[in-house]
Structure formats: structure tokens, C-alpha cells
């Protein structure tokens, strides 16, 4: 019994994790005037969480994760506009759609080097961007998809202008995704993903299918990213080409790196830090905030991720 508990200890909920979720849940209630910002943070956190799944756990460097975000955004928007305005059904449809795209494109990421994967993922996002731009009859092209009217959540709560319902909704989806991912990461499947990241050859040597696992995790991550995109469309009532753009892929990677790759809380911490940083710097210089985020990135990478966030190790000798 005791070795079992010690093995399971890693996957048990820590008290601070429960505390952090209580705080996160309390936020929309306490800070109601910042509900729009909280909503944005929750969406970015969900997006970062999905990137963490493939980058942090499976080790796929992707610069085109916005492809699935955009798929979800447009999927949810079009579904609400043409089929039915129920948010939960829309969310489901958007996730299935993104997962489908993820599944179709997953054979593309199993081959080649880091550079090839970088280019292929980016290429998929760019192709989808061009398609969304081309079929402007359906997507509204460069003007964006407007006129998305959402029905009430669960048939009861209307999306209000103050974004209170929206932030609670996004937070709930984020929470569900987090719990699901937490469960998955500590399952045998999650362990095999980390083994895959560290050494592909050995994983295949112990008789597990590398490609199958990659396809599965890529599809799952695509579905989660699609959910994030769907949330954005549903809570703002608008989808634009911006959802497919390169800077979205770059931003989410930034957020994840700030928070920490390969750590479930990394996406959430990173999203909070990124958005707050964005708000603070934008308050000083709206136009040039990219300069400071760039400087931050350069310093972070030069000093090393491990080191910068552990100031007590700065004066220790290198081992």
C-alpha cells in the first residue's frame, strides 16, 4: 500500500493548487469591473494550456498554434450564426472541428527536424488564414465575421456587456480543461508523452507507438485551442482574421514561456503575467510595448529561464 501512495503522491492535488483555484473562481465575483480582462486572461490561459500539452509535454515546437484557435473562433461564430445560438453546442462543434483539423495535420509533424516542424505548423496557420480571407462570402474576409448573436448560457444566463457571465463561463471551461489535463498528464499516457519528448528512440524501443501518441496529443491540443478560440468569439460576438495571425501564435508561446513550459500551471501563470504586463506597459506606451516584451524575451533567454525566476541562485557558483 505504501509504495502505491508514494507513486500516487505526485498526482495528488496540493493544498496551494486548491487555494489558487478558489482565488481564481472568486476573481470574477470580487473584481467585477475587470471582468473583461479576466475573460481575456482565461481564454489566453486555456490557449497556453493547449500549447503546453504539445510543447511542454510532447516537445513539438509549433509556431502555428493559432490555426486551431482560428478554426475554433470561426467554427463557433458560423455555427451560432447559421445553425443555433446555444453557446455550449457551439463550443462542442468548434472543438470537434479544430480536433479534426489537428488530426488531419498531425501526420505532418511527425517527420523532420525542429525547423521543418516550425515551418509546417506555421504554414498550416498561414494557409488557413489565406482561406479565411478568400472565402469572404462565408467568413466576411478582412472585415471579420460580425453579427454573431449568442443565446443565453444554459438557457438562463444572458451574456451581458459587463462580461460577468462571459468571465465565469471562460473560467469554467478553463477549469474543466485544467482538471482533464491534470488527470491526463499523470496517467500512463502522459508519462509516455514525456518519455517521447525526452527520447523518441527509446519509446519506440519499449514497444509504444510514437506516431500514434503524437497524433493523439496533437488532436487533443487542437481541440483545446479550438475551445479557446470559440470562447473568444462567443464572448465578444466577433471573429476576425486576427485569430489566425502569426502574432497570436507568438503571443501564446510567450505567455507559456513566461509561466514555464512543461508545467500545468505555466499556462495560467503565464497568461496572467502576460496580460497584466501588457496592460501596464500599454498604459505607458501603447505603440511601443512590443519593444519591452522583446527586451524581456532576450534577457530571459540570455540569463536562462531557470535562473531569472530564482533570484536566490544568481550568486551561486555554476555547477
Amino acid at each position: 500500500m505504501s509504495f502505491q501512495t508514494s507513486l500516487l503522491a505526485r498526482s495528488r492535488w496540493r493544498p496551494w493548487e486548491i487555494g489558487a483555484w478558489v482565488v481564481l473562481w472568486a476573481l470574477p465575483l470580487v473584481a467585477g469591473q475587470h471582468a473583461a480582462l479576466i475573460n481575456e486572461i482565461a481564454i489566453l490561459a486555456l490557449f497556453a494550456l493547449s500549447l503546453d500539452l504539445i510543447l511542454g509535454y510532447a516537445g513539438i515546437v509549433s509556431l502555428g498554434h493559432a490555426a486551431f484557435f482560428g478554426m475554433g473562433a470561426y467554427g463557433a461564430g458560423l455555427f451560432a450564426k447559421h445553425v443555433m445560438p446555444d453557446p455550449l453546442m457551439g463550443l462542442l462543434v468548434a472543438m470537434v472541428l479544430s480536433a479534426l483539423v489537428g488530426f488531419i495535420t498531425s501526420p505532418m509533424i511527425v517527420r523532420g527536424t525542429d525547423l521543418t516542424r516550425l515551418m509546417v505548423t506555421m504554414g498550416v496557420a498561414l494557409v488557413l488564414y489565406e482561406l479565411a480571407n478568400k472565402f469572404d462570402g462565408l467568413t466576411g474576409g478582412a472585415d471579420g465575421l460580425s453579427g454573431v448573436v449568442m443565446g443565453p448560457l444554459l438557457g438562463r444566463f444572458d451574456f451581458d456587456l459587463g462580461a460577468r457571465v462571459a468571465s465565469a463561463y471562460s473560467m469554467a471551461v478553463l477549469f474543466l480543461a485544467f482538471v482533464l489535463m491534470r488527470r491526463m498528464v499523470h496517467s500512463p499516457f502522459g508519462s509516455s508523452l514525456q518519455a517521447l519528448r525526452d527520447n523518441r528512440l527509446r519509446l519506440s524501443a519499449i514497444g509504444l507507438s510514437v506516431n500514434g501518441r503524437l497524433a493523439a496529443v496533437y488532436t487533443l491540443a487542437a481541440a483545446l485551442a479550438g475551445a479557446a478560440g470559440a470562447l473568444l468569439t462567443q464572448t465578444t460576438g466577433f471573429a476576425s482574421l486576427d485569430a489566425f495571425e502569426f502574432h497570436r501564435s507568438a503571443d501564446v508561446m510567450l505567455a507559456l514561456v513566461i509561466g514555464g513550459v512543461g508545467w500545468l500551471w505555466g499556462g495560467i501563470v503565464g497568461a496572467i503575467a502576460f496580460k497584466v504586463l501588457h496592460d501596464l506597459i500599454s498604459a505607458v506606451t501603447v505603440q511601443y510595448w512590443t519593444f519591452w516584451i522583446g527586451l524581456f524575451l532576450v534577457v530571459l533567454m540570455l540569463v536562462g529561464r531557470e535562473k531569472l525566476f530564482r533570484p536566490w541562485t544568481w550568486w551561486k557558483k555554476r555547477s
Partner: protein
Amino acid sequence: MLTLLFDGIAFGMLLFVLSLGLAVTMGLMNFINLAHGAFAMAGGYILVLLMQKAGWPFLACLPAAFLLTALAGAGLERLLYRPMYGKPHLDQVLFSIGLVFMAVAGVDYFIGSEQKNVQLPEFFRQRFELGSGALSLGMGSYRLFIVAVCVVLALSLQALLAKTRFGARLRAAVDDPRVAAGLGIPVDRVFMLTFAVGSGLAGLGGALGADLLGMEPAFPLKYMVYFLIVCAVGGTSSITGPLVAALVLGIADVFGKYYVPKLGSFIVYSLMIAILLWRPQGLFVRQGVR
């Protein structure tokens, strides 16, 4: 038809010069440098500023753009890039994206966000017309000049890499830095010089292309994809690979934008994905490297 082909070749040649430095740092030094476009932008702006503010003639600005960006490249390599060589690719990607962001915002701040245009000298604004009908070929003399410069550059670089002592040292330093250092090759200096030449070439390309591509602060982000496509598709271990890739890309882009303008760059991106699925290492791969 032939005119389009010619324009495509000129655009491809320009892309080749712009991406060559990236191919060198990526293939030879194994460093993913997304900030390469920033050097190209620097070259373009040096040309624009020298011509407008200092009144230099166009042809004198080209070498100046090359030298100044090469110097900047050498300085940055020394200060920032060197510690990043051994790091994982993800770190390199993020580091260089950070540099791009800084460059874009910096140019925006100091020079302004509007697009800068270049006043070409009189003799570059002529056009030659050959033949007639469907096979007529119209060549702008400036595009002819670009093609000529690029051919000379490609040939001399190939000779530099394959025939000279420096080329041999570079290849040795890349294959195994430790052994190369043990044989008395100054690996650090070879890398710095290579990086400087690569950046200088980007600067020259940016200066040459300032008229065709247009200079604006978002330049490094806008064309980053193109540079990366050239390197990924062409393979980064030779000069021929990027050359062929750049030509294919340039021609496909010009034709695509002319015949199906609504699809935009769709064709180019799909082509890239198809080629990468077919040959994940790029079209031309040097065998036997690790």
C-alpha cells in the same frame, strides 16, 4: 508571360540574397535566427536614410549598407548571439523573436511607421522590350541589375565556401568545433566573420529590395516567412539548395499573385507544405553530416 517569368526570377534572386545569410547561420551554425529580417531591414533603412538625408548616390549606398549591417552583425554576434549557440531551438526561436520585436518597435520609434520609398537613379528606370505578342519580354533595367548582382554573389560565395582556405575552415568548424579548435582554427572568429557576412548580405538584399519590397517597420515580420521557407525548402547545407528554392518561390509567388490574386500567398504556402512533406530535410541535403 515571359515578362512575368523574368519578374519572378528577379524576385527569387532577391529572396536568395536576403535568405542566404540565414541559410548559413541555420545550416552551418545550427542556429534558428528569426531576426534575420531585422538585418535586411537595417540595410534597407541605411540605404533610404543615406540617400534622403546625406544625398549619397544609389550605387554608393549599396556597399555602405553591406558594410554597416555586417559590422552590426559582428557586434551583435559577439554580444548576444554567442551565448545562444548551444541552447535548445525553442530558446533560440524565442530569443530571436524578441530581437525582431525590439527592432520593429525601435524603427517605428526613431524613423516612423510610414512606408519609405526609394528614388531610383534615371538609368534604372528604363525598360527593354523584346519580341511581341504572347512571347514578349519586358525587362526593367533595375531588375536586370538585381539578377546580375545576385548571380555574381552566388558564384563568388560558392567559390568562397568550396575553394578557399576560409571556406574549408568554416566547414571544419561546423562539423566539429572542438576538433577544429584543437587543430588551431580560430572557431570563434570564423563564426563571427561568417555571421557578419551573412548579416551583411541580408543588409545588401534589403537595400537592393527597398524599391521592390517597400521599407516599413513591419518588414522583418512580413518577410520572415519567405526567408524561412527558402531555407526550409532548399535545405541549408549548400548554396544551390536555397538558390533553387528562392527561384521557385519567387516565380510561384509572382505567377500566383498575377493569375489568382484573391488566393494571395496560398499557393506558396501550400507548395511549401507539400515539399516539406515530401522531403522533410529540404530538397538538397548534404549526406553524411551527423
